[in-house]
């Protein structure tokens, strides 16, 4: 199993090389891998039917509860088979569709990574590996959607898809972590499904909403659906794959998977039921408005995703059965239809369905296949799509509180989808032959084999519904519902309400097809629909983001050093001062202070120097005043019996003053740019900082928790350090490492200054 899931990644690394060396046949040969996987998963069916669910575990990061564990049951197997089966045809198809494209090797590499990630999503038992693969599908699909990346539009669409799905993905991560916490630290799906009490978790609502944010974005539910039609910027094989069996189905998969654990609450029921139904309606409505052949199919995918979500939300036995049947039916016909759309586009050179006509003679196989697949889309007997749609009506008719709402929307959707199916199957092929950019002829075998086989399966499964039912759907329904359900799929259910609804849908749908041009014209008179879309919201959000970013940068990173320093100083004062206030209040515990008279003199000297330096208008005076403060400090050292420090300080001060004066000589005249207000503000800030520092020193002044280490150093100084001057012994022995470091600091500064002067001087010479 591990190899089965990861083989795609291995092939991803080899694909570029293989594609190059295999040449034209690459598509056929590379398809061996997904075909092999399909056979492998088929082999699992007997075991799953017998035992229900199998889990396998390979340790990865056990410390973080991340393991490569897999859960094989009806649901994951159904998805795995769809992914590998349809994937096989997609790989073959891509070889024909992108024939001669120099970047085909890269394409295959990403495609295999994507397929493997998708398999990982549906087979993972571990929540985190599921998420890892989930995000990988987002990233790889980004690279696939942006395949024509020199086109600005394609880049934009790819980014949109990525941004929306990753945003949802991050919410999903939070949701999954909450799920694990709610399940008592259980990080496997099988464990979570087996645990109870999830719905008593205090943050149940937030958890469900976070998870649904992930699945709704991924599965293009309203109001996040807008990225999916834009994802058609991808080459058609990618669209066919994304829309039918992968990517968008990941969200549906996860909702189905978690249904037994999270379902059954009002929140789950209403969220899924309402959003699903609205999505279903929006998708079919937008499909009918479209004229682009791929856009039409993309919106019909949204319809299908909405239907599935709605059915999972309704959650009755009938609804779950309907969901699984619908899932299978949709995957089969949608992959076929998309691949056919690619054939049409490839052979005629246009994507606009209104510009195609009379192609039945030139492309007979395409025509017949399109008819079969579209019949399944429309839900007409004897196709498998019919069974699925009947079941769907059956489910909505018993939809609890949402019965009316879902049934009405389902009927309206069915009408519109009927029309869309008819348009797709008939419009390009019948009527008079129209001029197209390329002269059309039948597509190559590589591009037709997929649609033909898949359409044929739609037919076979319709006539012999017991095959998918016994092989897969029973087990899948058991997994989604949480316990076995007794059901059988028939083409003919007798005359009942669902059949009646179907009949209504067919009649009105065909009428809409008949008068489609009028319908389209009607839609064109309603341009406000375009403006209403949530896509505008996305654009606003992105623009707002950039605006906010620029505004913030202007405010914060404004380039003024004085602002930076003020912020730093105020932060210090606020944090430290506030902490002092919180912990001591206004009764600040000052230590005993006894100041001798000549000490006042020193303090006065320093203060006067500092003050004078700030208010004087002359640089020279300022330097002299600073020198005065410096000499004051030297006096302090002397006062506290450190005469050598005092001497050093005096030398440093003297040198500084001399150097500064030399520099000042070269500077332009002093101009005061600050207004009195600014100066007052700066003075206050400076005073608050100085005041705080003074206060702190006064506070800690006579706290001594234990004897200072200097006492021991004094004792050691002569016998151990062999020096009578304790300061010297500290500098060169006790704390010699500090001194070494400081020597290097001085050396470094010297190198820096030397380099600065020399490098510039050399510039000038050149």
């Amino acid at each position, binding site marked *: 199993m591990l190899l089965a899931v990861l083989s795609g990644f291995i092939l991803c690394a080899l694909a570029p090389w293989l594609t190059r060396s295999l040449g034209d046949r690459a598509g056929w040969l590379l398809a061996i891998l997904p075909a092999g996987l399909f056979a492998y998963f088929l082999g699992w069916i007997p075991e799953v039917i017998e035992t229900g669910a199998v889990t396998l575990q390979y340790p990865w990061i056990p410390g973080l509860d991340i393991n490569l564990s897999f859960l094989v049951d009806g649901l994951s197997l159904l998805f795995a088979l769809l992914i590998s089966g349809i994937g096989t045809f997609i790989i073959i198809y891509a070889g024909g569709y992108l024939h001669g494209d120099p970047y085909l090797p890269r394409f295959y590499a990403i495609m295999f990574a994507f397929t493997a990630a998708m398999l990982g999503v549906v087979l993972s038992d571990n929540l985190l590996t599921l998420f890892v693969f989930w995000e990988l599908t987002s990233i790889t699909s980004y690279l696939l959607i942006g395949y024509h990346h020199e086109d600005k539009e394609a880049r934009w669409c790819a980014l949109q898809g990525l941004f929306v799905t990753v945003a949802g993905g991050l919410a999903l991560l939070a949701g999954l972590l909450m799920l694990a916490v709610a399940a008592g630290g259980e990080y496997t799906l099988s464990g979570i499904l087996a645990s109870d009490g999830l719905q008593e978790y205090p943050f149940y609502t937030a958890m469900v909403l976070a998870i649904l944010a992930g699945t709704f974005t991924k599965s293009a539910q309203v109001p996040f659906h807008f990225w999916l039609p834009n994802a058609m910027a991808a080459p058609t094989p990618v669209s066919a794959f994304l829309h039918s069996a992968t990517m968008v189905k990941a969200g549906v998969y996860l909702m189905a998977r978690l249904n037994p654990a999270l379902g059954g609450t009002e929140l789950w029921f209403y969220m899924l039921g309402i959003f699903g139904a609205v999505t279903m309606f929006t998708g079919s409505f937008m499909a009918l408005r479209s004229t682009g052949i791929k856009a039409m199919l993309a919106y019909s995918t949204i319809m299908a995703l909405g239907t599935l979500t709605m059915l999972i939300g309704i959650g009755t036995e009938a609804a779950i059965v309907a969901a699984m049947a619908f899932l299978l039916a949709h995957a089969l016909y949608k992959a076929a239809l998309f691949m056919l759309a690619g054939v049409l586009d490839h052979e005629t050179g246009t994507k606009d369905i209104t510009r195609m006509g009379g192609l039945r003679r030139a492309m007979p196989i395409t025509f017949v296949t399109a008819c079969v697949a579209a019949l399944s889309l429309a839900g007409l007997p004897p196709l498998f799509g019919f069974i699925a749609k009947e079941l769907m009506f059956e489910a909505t008719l018993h939809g609890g509180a949402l019965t009316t709402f879902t049934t009405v929307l389902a009927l309206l959707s069915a009408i519109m989808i009927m029309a869309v199916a008819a348009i797709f199957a008939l419009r390009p092929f019948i009527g008079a032959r129209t001029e197209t950019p390329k002269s059309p002829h039948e597509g190559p075998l590589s591009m037709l084999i997929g649609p033909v086989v898949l359409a044929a399966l739609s037919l076979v499964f319709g006539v012999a519904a017991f095959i998918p039912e016994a092989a897969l759907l029973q087990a899948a329904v058991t997994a989604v519902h949480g316990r076995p359900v007794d059901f059988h799929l028939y083409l003919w259910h007798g005359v009942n309400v669902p059949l009646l609804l179907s009949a209504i849908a067919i009649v009105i749908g065909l009428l809409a097809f008949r008068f489609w041009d009028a319908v389209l014209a009607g839609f064109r008179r309603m341009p406000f629909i375009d403006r209403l879309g949530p896509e505008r919201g996305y654009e606003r959000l992105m623009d707002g983001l950039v605006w906010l970013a620029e505004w913030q940068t202007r405010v914060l*990173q404004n380039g003024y050093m004085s602002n930076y320093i003020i912020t730093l100083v105020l*932060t210090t004062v606020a944090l430290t001062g506030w902490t*002092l206030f919180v912990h001591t209040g206004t009764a600040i515990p000052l230590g005993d202070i006894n100041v001798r008279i000549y000490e006042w003199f020193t303090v006065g000297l320093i203060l006067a120097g500092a003050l004078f330096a700030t208010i004087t208008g002359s640089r020279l005076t300022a330097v002299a005043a600073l020198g005065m403060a410096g000499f004051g400090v030297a006096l302090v050292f002397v006062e506290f019996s450190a005469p050598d420090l005092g001497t050093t300080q005096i030398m440093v001060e003297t040198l500084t003053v001399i150097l500064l004066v030399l520099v000042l000589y070269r500077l332009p005249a002093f101009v005061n740019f600050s207004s009195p207000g600014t100066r007052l503000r700066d003075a206050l800030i400076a005073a608050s900082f100085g005041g705080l520092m003074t206060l702190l020193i006064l506070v800690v002044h006579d706290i001594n*928790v234990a004897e*200072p280490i200097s006492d021991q150093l004094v004792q050691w100084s002569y016998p151990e350090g062999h020096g009578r001057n304790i300061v010297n012994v500290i500098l060169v022995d006790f704390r010699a490492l500090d001194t070494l470091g400081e020597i290097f600091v001085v050396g470094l500064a010297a190198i820096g200054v030397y380099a600065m002067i020399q490098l510039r001087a*050399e510039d000038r010479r050149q």
Partner: protein
Amino acid sequence: MSLEVALPIIIPFLAGSLSLVFYRAPLVQRWLGVAGTGALLLASIVLLYRTYTDPDQVLSIAMGGWPAPYGIVLVSDLLGAIMTVLAGIMGFATAVYSLPTISRDHEAFGYYPLMHLLLAGVCGAFLTGDVFNLYVWVEVLLVASFALLILGGERAQMEGAIKYVALNLLSSILLLVAVGLTYGMTGTLNMADLVGRFAAMENQGLVTVVAMLFMVSFGIKAAAFPLFFWLPAAYHTPPVAVSALFAGLLTKVGVYALFRFFSLLFTQDVGYTHEILLWGAGFTMITGVLGAAAQYEFRRILSFHIVSQIGYMIMGLALFSPLALVGGVFYIMHHIIVKANLFLVSGVVYFLRGSYELKHIGGLWRTHPWLGLLFLIPALSLAGVPPLSGFFGKYIIIRAGVEQESWGIVAVALVVGLLTLYSMIKIWAEAFWKAQPEEHEERARAFEAAVSGKRLTLMVLPIGALAAITVFIGLGAQPIYELAYAAAEQMRDPQIYVNAVLGDTQ
């Protein structure tokens, strides 16, 4: 007494001094650059190994033979040793990268000695067990980095460097004040000794007050909100090898110090201090990532992302649960590798296209797919895309947040992850996917033609190695996790550190 604790400081000091001796012989300096940083890397790996296998998992050495707490001790616990290894990796990678990218001018004016001494300062800061000594190392690395920043003397460099040094000196002053106050209250400078003496203080509130000074000082070094201005002002100005080294290591000294002080020394009032850290972390993440969203220059984008990523690390510290600390350490490890690598990639892009402005460059995915891959690995990792290293770092921290029900910070961390992806994808779409803009085509061609294959190979070598480490940290996260876990265990129990340094006799 373990000499290997001192080696990561001695080696770069020696290499730097030797490079100064050969000031006029750039070729020797280059060899010394690679050999010295290589030796540093080896020494740091040995140190980590010895520390990890030590019964206490703490090694220490008393410098000059003066026992703790009277002399200066160097201490290698797991956090310090891990940081040192990262410094070794960064030093070696940038030294190799410097060979083809550093101009003669730079070499002639002390580039290599400065680089070695910078590494000495960084390693010193990671390994010292003495608060004043920490100040000294911070000075060493500050002055070394300042000199590296101004090397070249471009106007933009000067402007950035002045802001850099002024604001960082302010941080140093605060650090010095804090160290002074600490000594004034406790009469000791040894960190292990401080643990007991702080605990013995009657007025615990004053400890917290001093803690705030340390927090602001290290917050400036770490480029946390609202103290990060110096970083975006300066990091895009020097040669890329320097930017990469800075991006990998300098802010991390601040982060390391925060981790050290707020796990070992200042845990008296976690509800107060770490709550402030948490707010700081949140704002750091947001402001950093928004800053990046406004930029269109490759290195400026990366610079702002340093800020934003610092937020995640501090978040790990601030949540202060065992898992959160693991996440913090894990994140630091991942981030240093990834961030420096992105800067290195930006350098290659510059050598191939002649500009860092995203609007002037493009077409690299067509012409250099391997470079695209080497960009995607660190870029997606930075954005936290699984299964790369960044995902696991984020996952651990966010999981810690969910477990503590700190929903606000969890939401911030998630949204910032998304915006990080936005920035990385912006670079990807502009530099790699978009076609090369025609008006800048000539310069791009000229640059690409001027790069020899050999130079390109030397540049890509360290990038590839760092990318491989990124992939390894992701796919093989278990050993890295175990290491981070052990380091976090030590942080949770300061007594381990104290006993190992002062001896159990105390």
